[in-house]
Every structure is written in structure tokens, then in C-alpha cells.
């Protein structure tokens, strides 16, 4: 039996000629120090990508990429297609896993100086893979053709439309027509299943080829300087003096980690279930609060918090600058120290980037800059704030609700966070100041002068003047 298998193997190898190549790849020496748990993230990203291809193809057999049917087919996948919910969950959470692993891989590569000579183009190929993966994430979010997808396209088009002179034509090209419609979805489908995956597969091939040919980066040691004329020889000496064959020495950790990631994905997808779709992509349903997927929330936050006068400039030049810097990195610092112990500036960049993106993402999850659109009718006035108030003050309390003040101002911790909480207004503003603030607005508050009668203003101010904690007196004008 075994002899028969062996003879089949020999027959195949005599014709395929792959055996020696595979053996060479498996046996190629890697530095002993590189067979570390820090080196497992790239392979895990690749494994998740392969899973995405598998689940993606499965979903494509049911999903209908037509604007009038896409949402229905997603609902069908979630509720009727056997295991459709699980495949959608695996694909959706798989994309989260892939983006997360890719960023961890990138940070590791950056901190370990792996992009330096002679691996500059490995890094550049990795940057292309980063853009492709984010492109897959965005186009995938569009294919989940729901309200978030519709208005997310509107946001994308509005950003592109800010390009000087040709902006409006770029919008037409992105949308496949003058407005978000059937051709928009078809365009993004073609990008998501043909164009970007083809680029991904091609550049993954190049990336891996370069890793094999140039050898995996050695563990960076402080003081071991990369020089163009000596590095290659030093590396060869290192892998021969203190190297081990890739298989199984380094691959075993990749295998274990990738296996755990797959198991983790299976569990997370089973517990969390499929992501969306939310409401059907009907633009006339305007009772919607569009939000992007997790990995774009930080951008969403950034657009709310940038000073408006810088916005168009930064929206157009920011991505070019950041992406340009990423690509240029190995050409700016292609030699020198690899160890993070000797590269404090790089460590600071990583800490800053992670902190900024993390904070913006966290802010994006509750978006304090957005009015809470239904707070005025859905969130009651706290009972303590109406106890013992005069009829005039109570009238003011009603106006705080009915004039939608609560959409931007909270009372008792509920309501919008756009403006300051009203619980202690009277300690910060005198009566006159409250009147002026309501009538003239300012400080990012609309002016209500035209929308309120003098009697209404009077009632509102009477109520707001009571808004101070029991032990704290209301503000007084210094002249009084």
C-alpha cells in the first residue's frame, strides 16, 4: 500500500517537478531568533484571507448583486439559507480578524525594522496589501447593501466631490452614474470579487516570494547596524551559524497560532452571528443614523472633530500624505539600527498612532458630536427636575423637551452630548446670559430667537435658572 503511494508520488513528481522546490522552501534556514511568537501574525493574516476567499465564494452563490435584490438576498442568507447566517458571520468577522491581524503584523514589522535593506520592496508590497485589505473592507460594507451602505457611499462620494475642478466627475465614476443606484452596487461588486482579490493574490505571491528569497528578518539586536555593503553577508553567516530549517522549527508556531485564530473565528462568529444588514437601502427612510463598520469609525470621528476650515484640505491631502509616507518609509530609513531599543522615535509613532486611532474609534462608538435624534420625544425629563417647580418653570421644562433641546443637551445623564449638560446651567450662566445664549446661539449652538416667542423664552429661562445642584448657588452677575 505504502509502496503503491510512493510510486504514485514518484510518478507525479517526475512530471510536476515540484518536489525539490517544496523541499527547498521547507528546509531553507531561518535565524533561530526569528522562530518567535512575534513572527506569526503575517501567516495568520494569510490564513484568514484564504478563509475569506472560501466563505466569499460560498456567499456569492446566493447573494444577488443587484440593487433591487441584494438586501432581500442578505435576509434570505440570514434566515432561510441553511447555514447562511454562519457563513455571513464567518465572512464578516473574518474581515474584522483580517484587518486586526494585518495591523498587528504591520506594527511588528515596523518595530523590528524588517522593512530595512534589502527588504524594502517586501514592505512596499505589504503596503499595497494594506490598501487592498482596507479596500475589501469598504467595498464589502457596500455589498451589505443596507442603510449604512447607502449613506456610507454618500459619505465617500461627498469626500471625493471635494476634489477641486473634477470632483463631480469623480463622484460619477465612483457611483457609476449621477446618484447612488443599481450601477453603484454592481461597480463595488466587481471591485470586491474581481479587481481587489486579483491584486491581493498577486501581491501576496510577491510578498511571500520576497520573504523566501531574501530570508525572514532576524531578531533585531541593538547595535547590529544594517549596512548595504555588509548586511547580506552577515545574514548568510547568521542563518548558517545559528539557523534552523523553516520546517518545522519556525512553521510550528505559525501553525499553532493560525489554528487558534481559525478556532477563535469559528467561536466568535457563532456567538456574535452575522453582521447586519440593518434597514433596507431605501433613501426615503430618513430615520436612520448611518455609521461605518468598526475599522472606519476612527475616520468617521475624525471628520466630526477636524476644524471645518481644515477639512477639505486634510481629507484630500491627508490620505495621500499618510500612504505616501508608508510607501516611502524603507527609502527614508532603509539602513541603520533595527532594534526598537535604539529607535525611540519609531516607538513614539506607534504609540501615538495606536492611541489616536483607538481614542477616535472609542469616540465613534457613541459619537458625542451627533444630536440624539429621538431624545426629545424618547427620553423623559428626570422627575427630580420637575418636583416643586412653579407652573412657569414647568412650562419651561416642557419646552426643553418639545423644542428638541434634549437632542443636544443631556439632563440627568441622558440625551445628546453635543452641547453642555443642562443639569448645572444656572451655575455657569446668569439669567441674562441664558437669554442671550438661547436667542443668539453661538459656540456651536443655533440661534433660537426666531423660533421662540418672548413668553416661551421667559418660561425656558425660568426653568433653566433652577438648574443648579442643591448645595451650589446659581451664578450671579458681578454688578449685582
Amino acid at each position, binding site marked *: 500500500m505504502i509502496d503503491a503511494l510512493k510510486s504514485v508520488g514518484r510518478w507525479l513528481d517526475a512530471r510536476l517537478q515540484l518536489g525539490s522546490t517544496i523541499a527547498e522552501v521547507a528546509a531553507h534556514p531561518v535565524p533561530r531568533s526569528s522562530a518567535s511568537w512575534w513572527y506569526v501574525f503575517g501567516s495568520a493574516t494569510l490564513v484568514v484571507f484564504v478563509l475569506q476567499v472560501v466563505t466569499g465564494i460560498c456567499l456569492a452563490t446566493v447573494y444577488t448583486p443587484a440593487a*433591487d435584490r441584494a438586501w432581500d438576498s442578505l435576509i434570505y442568507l440570514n434566515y432561510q439559507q441553511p447555514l447562511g447566517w454562519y457563513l455571513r458571520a464567518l465572512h464578516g468577522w473574518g474581515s474584522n480578524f483580517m484587518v486586526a491581524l494585518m495591523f498587528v503584523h504591520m506594527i511588528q514589522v515596523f518595530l523590528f525594522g524588517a522593512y530595512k535593506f534589502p527588504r524594502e520592496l517586501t514592505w512596499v508590497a505589504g503596503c499595497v496589501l494594506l490598501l487592498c485589505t482596507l479596500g475589501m473592507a469598504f467595498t464589502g460594507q457596500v455589498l451589505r447593501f443596507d442603510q449604512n451602505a447607502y449613506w456610507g457611499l454618500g459619505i465617500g462620494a461627498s469626500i471625493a466631490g471635494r476634489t477641486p475642478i473634477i470632483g463631480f466627475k469623480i463622484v460619477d465614476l465612483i457611483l457609476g452614474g449621477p446618484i447612488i443606484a443599481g450601477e453603484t452596487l454592481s461597480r463595488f461588486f466587481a471591485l470586491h470579487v474581481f479587481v481587489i482579490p486579483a491584486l491581493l493574490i498577486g501581491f501576496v505571491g510577491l510578498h511571500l516570494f520576497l520573504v523566501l528569497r531574501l530570508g525572514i528578518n532576524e531578531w533585531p539586536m541593538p547595535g547590529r547596524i544594517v549596512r548595504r555593503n555588509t548586511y547580506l553577508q552577515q545574514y548568510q553567516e547568521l542563518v548558517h551559524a545559528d539557523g534552523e530549517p523553516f520546517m518545522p522549527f519556525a512553521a510550528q508556531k505559525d501553525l499553532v497560532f493560525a489554528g487558534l485564530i481559525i478556532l477563535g473565528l469559528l467561536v466568535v462568529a457563532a456567538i456574535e452571528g452575522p453582521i447586519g444588514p440593518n434597514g433596507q437601502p431605501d*433613501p426615503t427612510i430618513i430615520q436612520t443614523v448611518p455609521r461605518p463598520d468598526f475599522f472606519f469609525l476612527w475616520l468617521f470621528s475624525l471628520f466630526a472633530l477636524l476644524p471645518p476650515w481644515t477639512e477639505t484640505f486634510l481629507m484630500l491631502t491627508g490620505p495621500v500624505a499618510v500612504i505616501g509616507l508608508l510607501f516611502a518609509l524603507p527609502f527614508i530609513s532603509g539602513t541603520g539600527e533595527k532594534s526598537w531599543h535604539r529607535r525611540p522615535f519609531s516607538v513614539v509613532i506607534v504609540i501615538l498612532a495606536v492611541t489616536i486611532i483607538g481614542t477616535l474609534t472609542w469616540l465613534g462608538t457613541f459619537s458625542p458630536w451627533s444630536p440624539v435624534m429621538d431624545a426629545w420625544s424618547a427620553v423623559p425629563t428626570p422627575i427630580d427636575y420637575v418636583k416643586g417647580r412653579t407652573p412657569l418653570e414647568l412650562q419651561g421644562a416642557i419646552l426643553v423637551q418639545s423644542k428638541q433641546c434634549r437632542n443636544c443637551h443631556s439632563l440627568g445623564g441622558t440625551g445628546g452630548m453635543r452641547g453642555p449638560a443642562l443639569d448645572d446651567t444656572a451655575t455657569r450662566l446668569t439669567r441674562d446670559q441664558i437669554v442671550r445664549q438661547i436667542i443668539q446661539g453661538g459656540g456651536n449652538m443655533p440661534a433660537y430667537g426666531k423660533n421662540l416667542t418672548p413668553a416661551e423664552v421667559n418660561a425656558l429661562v425660568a426653568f433653566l435658572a433652577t438648574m443648579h445642584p442643591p448645595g451650589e448657588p446659581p451664578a450671579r452677575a458681578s454688578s449685582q
Partner: protein
Amino acid sequence: MDTEKTSRRTFLFRLGIAINAIAVALFAIPIVGYVLSPARRFTWLDWIPLGPLTDYPEHQTRLAEYVNPFKKAWDGETAKIPCWVRRLAGDEFQVFAINCTHLGCPVRWFAESELFMCPCHGGVFYSDGRHASGPPPRALYQYKYKVDAGKLWIYAGQLPTLGEPQA
């Protein structure tokens, strides 16, 4: 003998490159034209009826919807486009696009406080479309309108963005 052979070989090779260069250039024309075709028209606008004037009481702002004049059979619900119609008095209107001028999210009208609010980044506009607060760089987009045969018509069809000449 030898040089003659080489030159014939180089000639054929060069001819091959030339033929392919011409062929690829010709092939690229329909491909590029096809992909860029959505941008072939300068503007995508047409007059669209928004219903009889009686649908729009004076001094009020109402949500109206129209069907995209360039719709395809497979557009489904996305062919329907909403807009805000404010009737000042008589034949005097303001018709606002639904899209916030910041990043295109749908603004919502609050009749009690007479404000349009955007759910994305907190843009707020007054009843006449002027910017009231938040990040939007300009007033709400307005459609051209006309009153004809007892109906309100607007000149619409494309997504209004900051770069749009007709916005």
C-alpha cells in the same frame, strides 16, 4: 548569412512588438470608454414633478420624494430620492436636497425647533437652509424649481456634492 538571419529575426520581433502595441492601444479605447462612461455627461438633471401644490401647506416644510429620472430597472428602492420642500407663500418655495453639505447624510427636519439636524457629525441648518452649527461648510443644497400646471417641479437627478456645479 548569419547577419541576414539575425536581422530577419529582429525585424519579426520588432514587428510583433509594434503590432501588439497598436492592438493594445486599440483594445484600450473601448475598455477605458466603457469604464469612464458614467462621467460622459456634464450634468445629470431633468425636470421632475413633485406633486400638486396642495400637498405643500404654506409656511411648512414637508418631506417629498421623487423617482430618479435616470433610473434603471434594477435600481429597486434606491431609485426613490427624498427632498425637503418648504413652501413660503403662494408660488414661493425652497426645495432642499436631503444630503447634508458636510458628508451627504440625510438631514431631518424638526418642525418644533425649526431646524434641520444631521445624524452623522451634528450639522444643523435653519429653516431657510442656512448653516446653524456643526461642521458643514455651506447652506443646504437647493434644487431649482418651477410651478407649472398646479404642480411643483424640481430640476434634479444627481447626488449634490460640494464640487457639483449645479448644487
